[in-house]
Every structure is written in C-alpha cells, then in structure tokens.
C-alpha cells in the first residue's frame, strides 16, 4: 500500500513509513541488518572471550557488557532488542511486495509476535504467582516441551532464519513474481542498478 503511493508521488511528499518501504527500503533494511548483526556479534564475542581468549565466564560480557557490566545482567537489554526486532519487522514489511519475500517476512514477524506473547505470559505468571503446568517458576509455553531451552537464543534464531530467507527472495525475486517492487532492494534495481526511482 505504501509502496504503491510511493511510486506516484515525489519523495519529499512521502511519509516516513512510505519512504522506508519505498525509495529508502534498501537503506532501512541495511540499517536493520546492522542492528541484528550487532546483537549476534555480542553473543559471538562473548563465546570468543570464553573459549578462544580464555576469559573467566563472569568477565566475558561481550563488548557492551565490557564497558557497562550491569547491562549484561539486565533483562531490559534483551527485551529492548526483542522490541526493536518486532518494530523493525513490522515497519519494513510493506516494502516486501512479492509473494515469497512477503510470506517469509510475515512468518518471521509472526514468530516474533509469539515471542512477545511468551514474555507477556511470563509477566502475568510473575504478577499473579500462578505458574503454568504446576511448575515452581514462571514457565513459557515452549519450555513445556523443551524445559531447558534458552528462550532468548531460541526465538532470535527462529525469527532470524525466515527473515533472511525473505531478504533473499526480496533481493533475488523469482521471475514469476508479478508485482513490481517500489524499492531498490532487488539486484537489478539497486543503487548501482539501472532503474532509478522517481524523485519528483
């Protein structure tokens, strides 16, 4: 919807949402990927600090945690990232105008929504003191089947996989895709590609 409008009007008349799903979708998507990779880099760095550099586990806190140790034990940081993911997936979805890329991006968004629903369930249990499945602690639905699952890692992984598949189909759309994308993400419409966007 936003993309359709973006095609007909000059850039300066577009709303922010229309811009990031039209002419600036490629840039917005790249910035979003920087955030996503920065998050994974923190986890990777922490593992490197422990297993490659031999740091004591309590000292291995990634980059942010190195400078701000309280952050690593803060649930707020993890939840803030989950929120950024949800907002990013939601805001950038209209730019995915093909069939396959839209489908995979929506799957990713759906899983992220469920991730937040799990957070809500945990909060409700903590507030009411009534824990699911007769368990002694607040329990997520997924922990019913896999008791020792680490929720943060689990959800971020299963959100990431469909997201990157969506990106692949978005950048390399199938020949059968009939909808003409309004962004520059596709390989033949890119910043260095031939078709330039209408700028008024």
């Amino acid at each position, binding site marked *: 919807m936003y993309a359709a409008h973006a095609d007909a009007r000059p850039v300066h008349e577009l709303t922010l949402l229309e811009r990031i799903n039209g002419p600036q979708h490629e840039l917005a998507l790249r910035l979003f*990927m920087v955030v*996503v*990779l920065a998050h*994974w*880099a923190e*986890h*990777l760095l*922490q*593992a*490197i600090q*422990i*297993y490659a550099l031999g740091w*004591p*586990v*309590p000292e*291995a*806190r990634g980059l942010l945690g190195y400078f701000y140790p309280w952050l*690593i034990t803060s*649930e707020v940081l*993890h939840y803030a990232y989950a929120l950024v993911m949800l907002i990013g997936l939601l805001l950038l979805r209209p730019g995915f105008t093909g069939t396959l890329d839209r489908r995979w991006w929506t799957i990713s968004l759906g899983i992220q929504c469920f991730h937040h629903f*799990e*957070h809500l369930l*945990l*909060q409700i249990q*903590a*507030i009411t*003191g*009534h824990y699911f499945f*007769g*368990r*002694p*602690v*607040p*329990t*997520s639905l997924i*922990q019913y089947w896999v*008791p*020792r*699952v*680490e*929720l*943060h*890692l689990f959800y971020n*992984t299963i959100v*990431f996989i469909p997201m*990157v598949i969506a*990106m*692949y189909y978005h*950048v*390399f759309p199938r020949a059968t895709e009939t909808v003409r994308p309004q962004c520059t993400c596709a*390989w*033949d419409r*890119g910043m*260095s*590609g*031939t078709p330039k966007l209408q700028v008024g």
Partner: protein
Amino acid sequence: MLVTAAPLFAHNGPPFPVVTDRVVGNYVISLWADPDASDDGDKDGRFWVVVNPATKGVTLPADTAVQIAIWPVERRDAIRSETAAADQREPARRLAAFAIDHEGKYGVKATITGSLGPAVIESVVDAEYDARPRPLLIAVFALPFVLIGFVYLKLLVRRRAHKLA
C-alpha cells in the same frame, strides 16, 4: 516476596526439573533446579521443591517442612543445608538458594518432615555459570553472519556483473 526470588528471566538458563512427580512416602514430590555458579557470593543456585500429599483430597499439613542440602560430589563433607521457604501464595512450593562458588556436579537432597511422615529425595545436578554458552552455540552465533554475508555478497557480485554487461 517470594515472587521476586522466583526468576522471571527468559534470557537466563531456565530452572529445569530434576525429579518430577515422584511418590515418596505420603508425598508427591518434584524437585527443580537452577544451579548457577557465581563468583561474588550471590545465592544464584536455586532449588525448588513442590510437595503435595500423595492421597487425593488431603491438604498439605501446615507443619510440613522442607530442608534442602547441596554438596560438591567430590566433597560430601562440604554439605550445606537450608530450610526451603514456602511461597506465600502456594505453600506446596518451597525455595532454597545457595551460593555456588564453582562449576561442577553437586549432589542435592530434599528432606521433608511433618505430620504426614518423612520423605527424602536425592539427585545430582551440574552447576555452571549462567553466562557460559555451549561451544556448539558458536556455530549458531556465526550463522547470521554467514547467511547475511551470502545474500549481500551475491548481491554485490550480481550487480557488478550486470553493470559490466
């Protein structure tokens, strides 16, 4: 309040069942553990016992007490014991916390006493620092860089080839 002691951390290794609904004496007992080691003396090693009468319709007597003890398996003499506190909202739920100063295997024993009689369960748990990722997870952490790198590298190559053509 006990709720604050019960961790809400979804991003923390969650407590896991060690013993589930085992009938011992006149009780049905579950033992849960979150045996996190810490270097700063914090009582991050938490153990929960959920104890209910084995006979349906019988309520748990108020005099039921739960004692939880832990010890490094290689040093049985270093046993430490705590009376597990009852949850104000759910008396069947008891919690005890210990400072665990190193990783490794720990024995854990819950001793129940009260007018329904005694009961004991014992098991072994692995204590570890909560922040320690499993080595295998390095592959998971690296995967996003590989996949996104693949997409953008292929994009770069395709655009360059298209431009040259």
